[in-house]
């Protein structure tokens, strides 16, 4: 058996999703390599290969994680959900109180012994999505009820999002919106969803007020500044203007791999503005391909839902893919100046250890569901 056939046989589940992961990984490696020039100069005495190597390792580790995760039956994730959620609450509290400041935001904790910094919100996000999927799945019979269905779902959502929000508002809002969408798909009554959105707005307002008193823990000043910048300048702030110049340089087919000019002027070209660098190097063609890949992912997820007999599997897939596509679209929307600057990474493409590993884990879970759905529908 040839190696290609062997790999093909090993990779079970939706092959289209595997394809999306593969293409995103390739883009990730190319774009990160070409955009880490300044970072490499600053931290590694110009050794760009060091970043490439580290990134390659992370991507390879992530893909292996996807592979492992997709082998497991997705019901196991369901069983682990409450425990994971319970672990994540003290972790988040610890992060807000004692976490490491990176780029002026307290989003990280240093893992003891191994010494890796670790973004706790990534962990909590995954735990919450699994939990919400499980709860919605289990309570389908009486999902429209307030007390027995709506409350058990919404309380953890509010707690987790509330804990993430002080240091990382965008992630909290994205997670909140993801959960709202999950509830929407999971047949929660529409008035409750409206109520939830209202609640979100109220909590946001409260955080801004609290930020006046606890400027160290809550970055409300930054949020207000970014909002103001978005409102005030029609062309965007410095970063957005540089991103636009980058994209304009790319035109239809791009400057070619490694030829980005704007990577030198764009702050964090390897994470927040990686879409702009991709458009600069690969043109509109490359940008549309990236968007199409995420849409494909969501499309395949929808297809799984239509096939899935079990509500938890469907909810998990829809939750994870909403989370991924939402994050991706917000990241791209920042670069194309549709929303204020947020600091959300492009999943699976931006450089960043925890982000890629948890994205890969999400992919693995989606594939696990798809694998079992395919085996069931084959039997049917």
């Amino acid at each position: 058996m040839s190696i290609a056939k062997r790999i093909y046989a090993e990779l079970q589940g939706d092959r289209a999703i595997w394809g999306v992961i593969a293409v995103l990984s390739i883009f990730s490696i190319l774009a990160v390599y070409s955009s880490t020039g300044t970072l490499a100069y600053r931290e590694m005495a110009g050794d760009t290969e060091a970043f490439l190597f580290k990134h390659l390792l992370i991507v390879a580790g992530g893909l292996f994680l996807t592979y492992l995760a997709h082998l497991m039956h997705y019901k196991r994730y369901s069983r682990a959900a409450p425990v994971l959620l319970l672990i994540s609450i003290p972790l988040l509290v610890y992060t807000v109180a004692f976490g490491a400041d990176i780029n002026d935001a307290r989003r990280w904790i240093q893992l003891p012994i191994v010494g890796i910094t670790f973004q706790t919100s990534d962990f909590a996000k995954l735990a919450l999505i699994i939990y919400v999927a499980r709860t919605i799945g289990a309570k389908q019979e009486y999902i429209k009820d307030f007390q027995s269905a709506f409350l058990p779902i919404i309380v953890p959502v509010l707690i987790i999002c509330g804990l993430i929000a002080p240091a990382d508002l965008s992630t909290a809002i994205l997670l909140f919106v993801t959960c709202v969408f999950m509830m929407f798909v999971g047949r929660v009554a529409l008035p409750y969803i409206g109520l939830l959105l209202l609640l979100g707005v109220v909590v946001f307002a409260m955080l801004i007020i609290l930020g006046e008193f606890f400027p160290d823990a809550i970055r409300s000043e930054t949020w207000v500044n970014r909002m103001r910048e978005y409102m005030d300048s029609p062309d965007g702030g410095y970063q957005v203007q540089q991103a636009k110049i980058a994209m304009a340089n790319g035109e239809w087919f791009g400057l070619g791999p490694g030829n980005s000019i704007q990577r030198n002027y764009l702050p964090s070209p390897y994470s927040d503005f990686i879409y702009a660098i991709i458009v600069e190097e690969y043109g509109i063609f490359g940008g549309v391909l990236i968007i199409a890949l995420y849409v494909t992912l969501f499309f395949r997820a929808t297809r799984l839902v239509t096939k899935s007999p079990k509500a938890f599997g469907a909810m998990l897939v829809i939750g994870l893919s909403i989370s991924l596509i939402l994050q991706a679209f917000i990241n791209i929307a920042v670069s194309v100046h549709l929303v204020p600057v947020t600091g959300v990474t492009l999943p699976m493409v931006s450089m960043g250890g925890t982000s890629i590993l948890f994205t890969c884990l999400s992919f693995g879970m989606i594939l696990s569901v798809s694998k079992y759905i395919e085996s069931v529908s084959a039997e049917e």
Partner: protein
Amino acid sequence: MDIKNEVLYRVYFLLFGIVVPASLALVYRTVEITVFEGSRWRAEGEKRYLDYRTVEADRGNILAADGNLLATSIPYFDLYFDAKAAPDEVFEANLDTLAHCLAYYVLEDYTVGGAREYLVSLREGNNRYVPLRQKVSYAEKKFIESFPLFRMGRNRGGFIAEKRSERKRPFGILAQRTIGYVREGAKPVGLEGAYDEALGGQPGQQLMICVDPSKDLWMPVDDLTVIEPESGNDIKTTIDLDIQDITEQALSRAVNVHDAEWGTALVMEVETGAVRAIANLGRTKQGWWETYNHAVGTATEPGSTFKAASVLAMLEDGYLALDDSIRVFEGRAEFYEEVMEDASPYSYRLDSVSLREAFEISSNVGIAKAVEQFYGEKNRRNGNEGAARFIRRLKQFNLHQPVGIEIEGEANPYIKEAYSEEDYWSGTTLPWMSIGYELELTPLQLLTFYNAVANNGKMMKPYMVSAVERNGQVEEQFYPTVLNRRIASKEAVRQLQELLLAVVENEQGTAHKLQAAEYRFAGKTGTAQVNYKKGPRGNSIGGHQASFVGYFPAESPKYSCIVVINKPRRGGFYGGDVAGPVFREIADNIYRAKPQLHPVLNMGAELALDEGSLPGFSLGDPADFRSLMEQLEIRPYGEPETDVSVLRPKGDSLMIEPRTLPEDVVPSVVGLGLRDALSVLENRGLKVSVEGVGKVARQSIKPGTSIRGQQIKLYLR
């Protein structure tokens, strides 16, 4: 509607109602920015010409051995004004006072009103980088920075101070060439060049915006990636400022007096090989200047100073003892029809002398004939090595290799290979080599050899940098290095030392008149002909190079020193007359400046002090006591802050105790000296009259009486 269908409807709504429209919006925006607005953004990219520009790191200092600065970077600032930085209300609020300050202190051609108009015009003209003043000191910058508006900083006030720096050598010409420089477009020179990497530090990078491409004006963009420059390390040299100054002055006098082409003088520490001074003076149109490092970079025929090496070879081989007789042929001999003559006034009367005498009077013929006898053709024909053995000895003395000094440009020594056609070896080569011709050495290389002789045969590698330091902390220490543990047998070296001492101390010696009274030194004179042509009908000479190389004090040598004066045109040309006195002046002054070189006069155990032998209960000014104790090398206890103190014996030292005198009543001044008593009483408004000499024994007003400006009489004894 069943559960499955409701889920499906809602998912389809999500897909087609939200995801697909959102993705289309993103694609549309991408195309809009890239294509519809593309040309505008591309133009913006070219206009807003940003670049990461190098920010030079602060260059490290070059320090003398005692920590004095030999070279340092003095910072200065160029000041600019960004007229658009301040918000309208802030600009207007500060405009008048700023105009006032500027008109008085910076824009001296403007009146206050003129300055105000100028500021307004700058703001209206969108000027973001107006030069205010160039090359101001840190203090001036601080002052101007304190002006209204400016004190709000770069972003709100528009005050831009760009730091630059200038390399300065606080001691001017002193060791200038050795300190060297690094300049764009020029070969790096000296220690600056050799340690450029360590001194230079790591340049940083800052994002800058080009505000005027035609003038290449760049302004830093704040709040964005800045790679902080890492300042350079300091280099601690072995240069001793006192010795350097002494050496440079002595050399400077000599090149002037003798109207020389160039001169160089080097002082090395015998035990370590540390270069303590290195001076080079060359003639330029602007006077004497350190233009080239001759000590390191110029290899010439050394002449007679090389005889030490020839003699050491013969002593090492045991061919001769100091008192063995050798022939000098009345100071004139022919080698293969070429004539060699002695310069010594003694030679023409002599046919044969001892080796010792031949060396003292620096007889060319004597040394050359001896070398010819032991290493020449006859010796070779008898089946021996001949000249090859002589060359081997020279190599044993490390004379064929550069010494590897840290700075660039050390010239290679040139020692011919025996009988090598490539080196044009001829019958006259060996005799002329033996007296320092047909070979080349730099002053530094020759000094290294003499230093090894002074160091009893142990050859130290000369070095000029003892440490790389950072903020006073040693980063890297350089230790003395041995080049050759023993260049020759102890006995041979000892005999050569004896000969070198004889050159100075024996009456016939070429350096006899240089002998010093306070200390003994040893050395050898050299007078080499330059641009000469050897011929059967005598030699034509294009000038001389006078040199003297030696060490002092002779008993336990501390410093070795070489002086080379090239082409003296006035006041003689012999090594003993031209270079010798420079050596003597350097040695004299070093000897005077360094008491540790003097023989110890009062060697013996330090006296122990006991309470009984200490003076006690004296009254006086505590500062006077302390300075007196310092003179006597007694460390007292106590540091009272009162005007008057009392001295009490305590253990093996003295305690200075406070004595507070009342302010409002007449104090007791009994026991005080007159000066202290006067200051105490007159400060309290009393009129003092005095009788007798010594300390106060009695006072006319009782202590404790209230003060009303009375007359008080002191009786001193």
